[in-house]
């Protein structure tokens, strides 16, 4: 029997994100696979070189539209660590609130698209409707519907007023009401269970071996959450549960994310209740001659890591390791021995965010890019 090597993507109806997956097949079973990235390149790490620190914050904010709270939050954490600056309590609380709002909108968006991959279009429409509530809150707070740019060095973009707090509470209550209804659907629907139970199974020991982070590791029972392990912002002052499931399959990953939405709502309520009085300072120019620092935050998809080196007041080197890049190494391993039809479900259950991952490629004009489809036609057709 022949082995067939087929490219899936970069443009493919079952993939929302551009990547090329090359799978070798024996009949319908995958025997080997490899990933190619670089189709959503922006050259962020190179762009950051030689920029001032404030300019860097603006670029970092534009890495990704979905995680656009996590990246500035991490960048600001690293810079404040180098400066040895501790922000006022009110600033910490405001940042925590926006971080959690960002997590909720990301998780709702992902759950909708996961169900869309299974052919459950109605649920996608419902989830997008509920995400709108969160986006309205974020728009009111930050002025933007994506690329929020709320975190600033030593401060935040703007303060919240009493009327804002009422508005936020009314909107998150709307979402809070809906989540148990969806949970019931997910827990009872037989199609969802048939497509997701035991698919993309990662045992706990593998999860630890592959250094997995975020909801994927937590769905395998690993106790890992940067908000608990290495608290930042005001996470050491709020009480929340580290959500874990034990099955390690695509279904468990979905349950973890759904339950985390409720936990995030719980955090926002505590933050709004206990927010200390105070002023939001205005941003002032930053003088930082030299320094190097590392830092991490819990992005919606897991640990987000930044390393920044500053030399002569400019960024000399920035290294950004978003969570998606961390779990791509297990994706190819997960596919081995599986059927072609499971590829979209496994990929979607990992919640990849390629915009975050592909930060570094620079392709100059006039350079020809070799498409794997052509490659395929020449070699195998």
């Amino acid at each position, binding site marked *: 029997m022949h082995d067939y090597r087929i490219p899936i993507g970069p443009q493919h109806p079952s993939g929302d994100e551009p990547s090329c997956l090359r799978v070798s097949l024996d009949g319908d079973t995958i025997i080997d696979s*490899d990933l190619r990235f670089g189709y959503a390149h922006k050259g962020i790490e190179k762009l950051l070189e030689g920029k001032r620190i404030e300019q860097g914050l603006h670029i970092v904010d534009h890495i990704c539209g979905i995680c656009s709270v996590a990246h500035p939050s991490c960048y600001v954490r690293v810079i404040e660590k180098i400066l040895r600056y501790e922000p006022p309590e009110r600033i910490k609380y405001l940042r925590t609130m926006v971080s959690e709002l960002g997590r909720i909108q990301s998780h709702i968006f992902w759950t909708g698209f996961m169900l869309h991959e299974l052919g459950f279009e109605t649920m996608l429409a419902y989830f997008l409707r509920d995400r709108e509530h969160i986006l309205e809150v974020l728009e009111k707070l930050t002025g933007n519907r994506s690329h929020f740019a709320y975190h600033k060095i030593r401060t935040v973009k703007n303060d919240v007023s009493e009327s804002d707090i009422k508005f936020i509470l009314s909107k998150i209550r709307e979402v809070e009401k809906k989540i148990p209804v969806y949970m019931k659907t997910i827990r009872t629907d037989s199609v969802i269970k048939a497509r997701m139970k035991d698919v993309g199974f990662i045992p706990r020991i593998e999860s630890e071996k*592959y250094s*997995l982070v975020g909801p994927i590791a937590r769905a395998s029972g690993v106790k890992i959450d940067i908000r608990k392990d290495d608290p930042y912002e005001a996470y050491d002052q709020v009480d929340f549960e580290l959500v874990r499931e034990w099955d390690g399959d695509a279904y468990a990953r979905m349950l973890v994310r759904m339950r985390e939405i409720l936990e995030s709502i719980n955090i926002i309520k505590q933050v709004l209740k206990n927010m200390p009085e105070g002023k939001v300072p205005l941003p002032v120019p930053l003088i930082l001659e030299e320094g190097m620092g590392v830092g991490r935050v819990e992005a919606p998809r897991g640990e987000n890591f930044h390393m920044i080196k500053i030399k002569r007041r400019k960024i000399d*080197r920035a290294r950004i390791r978003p969570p998606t890049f961390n779990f791509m190494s297990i994706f190819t391993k997960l596919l081995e021995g599986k059927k072609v039809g499971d590829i979209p479900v496994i990929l979607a259950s990992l919640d990849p965010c390629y915009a975050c991952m592909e930060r570094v490629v620079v392709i100059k004009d006039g350079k020809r890019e070799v498409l794997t489809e052509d490659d395929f036609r020449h070699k195998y057709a």
Partner: protein
Amino acid sequence: MEEKRLKLKDFRQKMEKLRGHRLITISALDSSGCYHLLYHFDINGIKTFKVLIPEKKPVIQSIIDIFPSAEFYEREIHDFFDIEFKGNPRLHEKMFLPDDWEGKPPLLKDKK
């Protein structure tokens, strides 16, 4: 930033000792005359181990047998810095750069 310098010849031995801890990522830096490779681990906070590699012969042993998640980090660094990781089987298959990429690796500094 907590940083510990490792010698190139003791590198594998130290990595064996760290087996079981979580590798966060590997970062590479282009400095004058050498490359810095920073291995960030999660050991009660972020602990960094620094290895210096000479620019003329940038070769280091791969650690994917100890930390399988290092595979893509090493391939990324190979794409952008042209550092050779001995023992990584898919190192030369380009991951981010186009297959017909010519010219110097994009993240190297302009040295004049």
